[in-house]
């Protein structure tokens, strides 16, 4: 299991900002936003499966967590990248494989992160008549 951890360090290089592996089953990494697509592609090639993604609003922007399961190693690596204010955006990973299509659409709907290069950025969870630019999971949201 250590090998995935080692290879992520050598593959992502200086754009890997932080890495921690507190147990045999969980690892956490922070990468520079420019490197996210490359990192996820590399982890998928190494046998990882994207379980899902979580958007979290933090002080500097929207943090997107990519949860990658290495099923046969029993390891979950969470890779984190920050989409900074004022216009949070990240490169889309859904252009590389369809399993990320829905979750990127959902994060775009509720937190307003633009995923650049996404092939089909229609609404997924918000109704068609929802006002543009109003993101219900952001902290300042007023119903």
């Amino acid at each position, binding site marked *: 299991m250590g090998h995935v951890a080692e290879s992520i360090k050598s593959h992502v290089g200086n754009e890997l900002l932080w890495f921690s592996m507190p147990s045999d089953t*969980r690892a956490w990494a922070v990468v520079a936003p420019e490197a996210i697509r490359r990192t996820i592609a590399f982890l998928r090639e190494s046998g990882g499966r994207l379980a*899902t993604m979580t958007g979290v609003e933090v002080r500097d922007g929207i943090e997107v967590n990519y949860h990658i399961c290495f*099923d046969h190693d029993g390891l979950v690596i969470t890779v984190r990248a920050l989409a900074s204010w004022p216009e949070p955006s990240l490169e889309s990973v859904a252009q590389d*494989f*369809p*399993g990320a299509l829905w*979750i990127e659409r959902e994060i775009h709907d509720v937190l307003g992160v633009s995923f650049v290069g996404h092939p089909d950025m229609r609404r997924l969870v918000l109704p068609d008549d929802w006002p543009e630019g109003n993101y219900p999971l952001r902290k300042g949201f007023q119903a």
Partner: protein
Amino acid sequence: MKRTLVPIGPYHPLQEEAEFFQLYVEGETVVDMDVRISYNHRGIEELSSRKTFDQVPYLVERVCGICSASHPMAYIQAVESIAGVQVPDRALYLRTIVLELERLHSHLLWMGLAGHFIGYNTVWMWVWRYREPVMDALELMTGSRVNYANAKIGGVRRDIPPEMYPEIRKAADAVIGPTELVIKAVRDDPVMHARLKGVGVLRKADAKAWCVTGPTARGSGVDIDVRKDEPYAAYDRVDFDEVVWDNGDVYAKFMVRCYECLEASKIIIQCLDQIEPGPVDAMVREIPPGDGCGHVEAPRGETFHFVRSDGSAHPVRHKVRAPSYVNIPSFKASCIGQEIADVALILASVDPCYSCTERVAVAKDVSTGRVVWSHSDLVRLSRQKTARLSGRGNRTA
């Protein structure tokens, strides 16, 4: 050929959540499709951040009425990984028993519905009858047929007396005979082969690209199962097989679910043999700041939860990803090129939520807006195909 849009959905009174399948058909063949969801968005992730850590399991067991043990379990394991909790052994066994009883009732429910869609209503009625003892065992153990409120952070909420073991064992045992009967009936019936084999094939590469999980993945030869890969509860102490079939068709998914019922029954009986008296709660007092991921093999596939704590009484962020969220989009890979009479069955084959296909369905001609097919027409089509294959003429079963 003229292209027709066949909308299936979005609302049906039996369904707790709504989906809307839009099939584009040319003649009898599906050429493209789209799925629209979230007609009934409940905002559970936001709601969860307003509950205390101990209240959240009650909320997330309502994500799904069928997986109401798996969702709290994934959440609880995420929180326990933040707090570094050592859960007592007895609690781990009790959790395993409830999770496997849940798998039994979910798979049996699905098998019955699959029979109904094919036009074998006897299978439907009988399988649901065999499911009842499992529901009774769940009620006996947890006090409820659904929404068990059984697991809590650090253990389980309710211990069971040893006098209950024989009752639970009886329920687990009772499933084996009927399941073997169904397996044999499906295997020996040429009509079932004609209806299920080679239908709605999800190839292994597609299964990986769409990141599907559970029986949908294992029916396509992808050998992933959280119970084996990252054993939680007491799964590392019991002996069971991971059921994997390679074909990727509806038949493979049917068989995976059937054999998983036998394995579930085996697991429950082993747990009852091994369980020993002891405490059932680690008495967790506070949750430190940190991030945690938890995943559980629910009946339909992996359910994944992410929790962030800042040391207060509430989670700051709680992400819920149910298995159907990754399994449903894969229809795009499995439905195209199929006959419309098979679509009801293919949509049902990932067990999207049992009545997903049994909803208001109206087919309209795109150019004229005239209604072409209704939901009952679609089910009738599916049943007629079975009747035709079994030489019973054009009669509905």
